[in-house]
């Protein structure tokens, strides 16, 4: 076990060449050159949407539609941001988005870890059935659920209550979260559990102190995915929430869609504002994917 850990701790950028086929140093350089050119080109393409969005948010309708997407706005409309901040309750929406997203993500990832652990590691008759039950949750189109869920929340008196969306987000993200966790749990070595149980470790302690830290990278992965889904969701919010004080950021976008006219620049500014917090969280969580493996070490 020790050896494994040490090996994992070796730095990621050792100078072992990736393309050993080309033994000659010249070949190697060329191959690297081509690879990096492609990789950097891809990176530029991938960063392009952010730049586009920034430009978009500084244009008015005229420029949005009639200038090239990547052209710099001739007369940057910073007032789009002012408009977004001053009109409507964007501050309230923002806070709601944050706490609703965080709560739903934590609940979903925790519950999904429990379930995945029970399904992959514990011995019981109906675990395949249970897995099947969760997987069916992937398959229902969102719009089919709106009328039934509305009447359900009405009955249990959760209408216009943030709990209704938190529960809905949890329910609709559990299946995909479990599915992603599943593939990873299968690869966890069993010896660790066995050793822990031998040492007299209780099952809960084992789950929280060994399994969860070991799965930190994949938990970070599912947390990112959940976060993005919850943050950008608006159909459920619109349906179950009617008070302004519980609405989320996606509603801020609707503020600029009119009956006949839509203020695209302001929508761009709202999108830009709303992407910043998840960009930040993503960058932090994304490090966990790598760190998890080296620091969340196996101490069994």
């Amino acid at each position, binding site marked *: 076990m020790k050896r494994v850990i040490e090996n994992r701790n070796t730095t990621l950028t050792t100078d072992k060449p990736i393309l050993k086929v080309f033994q000659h140093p010249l070949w190697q350089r060329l191959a690297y050159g081509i690879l990096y050119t492609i990789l950097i080109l891809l990176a530029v393409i991938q960063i392009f949407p952010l730049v586009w969005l920034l430009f978009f948010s500084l244009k008015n309708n005229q420029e949005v*539609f*009639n200038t090239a997407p990547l052209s710099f706005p001739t007369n940057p409309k910073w007032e789009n941001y002012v408009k977004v901040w001053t009109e409507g309750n964007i501050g309230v929406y923002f806070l709601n988005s944050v706490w609703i997203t965080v*709560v739903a993500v934590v609940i979903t990832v925790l519950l999904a870890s429990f379930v995945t652990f029970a399904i992959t590691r514990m011995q019981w008759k109906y675990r395949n059935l249970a897995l099947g039950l969760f997987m069916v949750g992937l398959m229902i189109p969102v719009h089919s659920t709106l009328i039934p869920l509305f009447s359900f929340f009405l009955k249990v008196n959760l209408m216009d*209550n943030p*709990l209704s969306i938190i529960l809905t987000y949890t329910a609709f993200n559990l299946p995909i979260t479990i599915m992603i966790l599943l593939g990873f749990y299968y690869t966890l070595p069993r010896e660790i559990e066995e050793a822990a149980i031998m040492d007299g470790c209780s099952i809960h302690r084992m789950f929280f*102190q060994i399994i969860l830290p070991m799965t930190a990278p994949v938990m970070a992965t599912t947390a990112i995915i959940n976060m993005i889904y919850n943050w950008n969701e608006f*159909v459920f919010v619109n349906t179950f929430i009617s008070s302004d004080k519980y609405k989320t950021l996606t509603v801020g976008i609707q503020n600029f*869609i009119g009956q006949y006219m839509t203020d695209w620049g302001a929508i761009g500014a709202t999108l830009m504002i709303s992407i910043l917090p998840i960009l930040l969280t993503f960058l932090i969580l994304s490090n966990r994917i790598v760190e998890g493996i080296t620091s969340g070490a196996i101490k069994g």
Partner: protein
Amino acid sequence: MIRKKYSLIFALTMVFLLVVTGCSSPNTASSGNEQADDAEIVTINFMHLWPAGSSRQQNMIVNEIIEEYQDANPHVRIVQEVLENEQYKNKLQIISASNELPDVGMTWPAGFMEPYVKGNRFTPLDDILHGGVKELFVAGTTEAYAVDGKTYAFPLELNIVPLYYNKAIFAEYNLEVPTDFEAFKHVVQTLVDNKVAPIALGNKDRWTGSLWYMYLADRLGGPEVLTNAINRTGTFEDESLVKAAEEVQNLVDMNAFVRGYNGLSNDEGKSEFLNEQAAMYLMGSWELPNFTTNDEIPQEFRDNVGYFKFPTVDGGKGDIDSWVGGPGVGLFVAENSPVKEEAKQFVKFFVERWGDQAVARAGVTPATTVDTSVLELPQLYIDVLNDLGKASNITLFADVQMRAAVAETHLNMIQSLFGKQVSPEDYAKKHEEALAAEGN
């Protein structure tokens, strides 16, 4: 190890705290409302689609009217919920299924409201209509909200569809405003020859193309032919309805519309006109602010915009003062509202206040009569309102007239017709089939 444990416990506590606070705060809020109810305060829930961001003027007027009403009726509290068009329609249907409509809300006329009326969700407003409200409206507008002789909503807007054009482009190529269709085609041809896109159109939204078809149907077959085909006293395979489809395709063959029109949204299509890339644009009078008061659009361009009436067709039965258009959103009161009487009074007050404010400040052409001599309005508004007053007929938008399922067929067929994926004969036949299927 120990730090890990603590952070985990911390995380879990946070979750529970958040869940608990998340649970409890709404409860305290609602108990507060109940106490207020004890003091005999009547709450009217009002759902509309004018957010402060995109429809600032409308939103402001709504708030002022509400304030005024609350001041005059201190026991009434009006609570608003604002959703954007599309989301509004969805939510209306979802909450209807549980019979939870707001006390007052917005609906569209005819085909859209029919299921709500049949499902007994809206309440008839005839008592207030005949209590001094009917006189306020332009004659014939409330009829669009009537089912089986009862009126279920009051219109807030009334639009007609002029053919806007860019005077500068017309002047550049020595073009004159056409009054008949041959002259119109000549204008189109001249513009095409000079590599100017004649007509801005965003036909992804489909109802935009429908306007062209409706006018051609009207000019060829007269004001009744399309309406009759829809209400089943006539047929869609009427000669003039097929001919109108042919004329649409003739225009397509002439390259009359901007490039890629079938994949452009109305916003994208419109921008070609606003940027002087296209010379003409057929659209509702709700666009007038863009050509008069909207400061975001260059003054120079706004001064260049004029409009003309859709040209007549030689030998056709339609006259030039017949318009496509009709009322847009209207206010309804929910049948199962616990405060129905108060809600009706509020609706009455709202339509009384709305008209003059709406046209003067929000640029909405209201369904109530407007005295253009009193209000200070841009010339374009005065012209449109005067033409509206002189209209020999207003044919309600086809997709609004039709029941929802038929409207869907119509809109799809319009896109195919403009894309030349269907022949005029098949176009008419598909409509006839859809209409016949709905009939029984």
